[in-house]
């Protein structure tokens, strides 16, 4: 559902229902964003919570309109990730009951296969530079239109397209090497 100016005004005022909607809209995407970076589900959960705390605190100072909200959310997420790099000596405290991400799996065999596929996906994404990975996550995991990906990441559309082109070539090479090994 698109965000409107009234929602943004409520969010900036710290309205409970606006904050709840923000969390509901972005908790999945932010979790996947962080998870795609390092593949640690517990850490991705922690970082999502940190990102929401930062988002709510920073919302009153947000510039721009509703169209900039997604970009603002991912800018905060990138800051949270940068902070992890700065504080990487800090040990990750896994949340209780956090573990493998929830999949709509049917049985143990399917679960193992899904885990392998996920591991392969993460390995492929891990081989990309941060910007290309962000583009791939937004374009192919969150399935945002390329124009919105460009706006969210503050990149020219041409850059997004060329990164996707280059990323696809890298992906093909990585997949070929993975298939060779297996």
């Amino acid at each position: 559902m698109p965000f409107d100016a009234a929602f943004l005004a409520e969010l900036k005022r710290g309205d409970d229902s606006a904050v709840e909607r923000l969390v509901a809209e972005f908790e999945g995407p932010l979790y996947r964003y962080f998870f795609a970076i390092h593949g640690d589900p517990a850490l991705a959960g922690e970082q999502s919570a940190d990102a929401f705390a930062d988002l709510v605190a920073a919302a009153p100072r947000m510039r721009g309109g509703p169209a900039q909200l997604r970009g603002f959310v991912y800018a905060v997420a990138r800051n949270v990730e940068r902070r992890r790099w700065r504080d990487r000596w800090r040990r990750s405290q896994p949340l209780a009951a956090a573990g493998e991400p929830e999949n709509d799996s049917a049985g143990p065999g399917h679960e193992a296969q899904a885990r392998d596929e996920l591991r392969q996906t993460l390995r492929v994404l891990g081989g990309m530079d941060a910007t290309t990975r962000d583009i791939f996550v937004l374009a192919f995991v969150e399935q945002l239109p390329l124009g919105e990906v460009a706006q969210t990441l503050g990149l020219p559309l041409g850059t997004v397209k060329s990164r996707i082109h280059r990323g696809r070539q890298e992906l093909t090479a990585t997949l070929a090497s993975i298939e060779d090994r297996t």
Partner: protein
Amino acid sequence: MNDSTEPTPSEEDRLGELLSPLRRAEPTAPMRRANRRAARAALVRPTTSSWWQHSVSVPAPVAALAAGVLLAVGWGLGAWRSISSDPPAPVVVEAPAPAPVTPIADTGAPAYTTKASYFPGVGFVSRQTTYHLENPL
């Protein structure tokens, strides 16, 4: 836009298939609760910071002008200090000649004059007394 950058449908499918496991990744229920707790805690926390933590945005020309004025004031202050801290010129005080000493019956008793340098606030820094024999033998 170069057509070669557009993915073919089969490439698109392969990419979609490759990334679909990540698409299914969802935060667990405790993580969802933690997100809401964190957001609520940030709401409760006072967002007003102390005045010295506030920042203001100023247009660049105004900032440049203010910086120029500050530099000029600083330079002027420095110049004024260097002038005011120059040592004061010594004031030479000619001590009044003492009342003529009445010679005691041609004994050749000396008359004298005194020259002294006086710094305001410091006092006399040098004093020179010259004796004159009025009736040299």
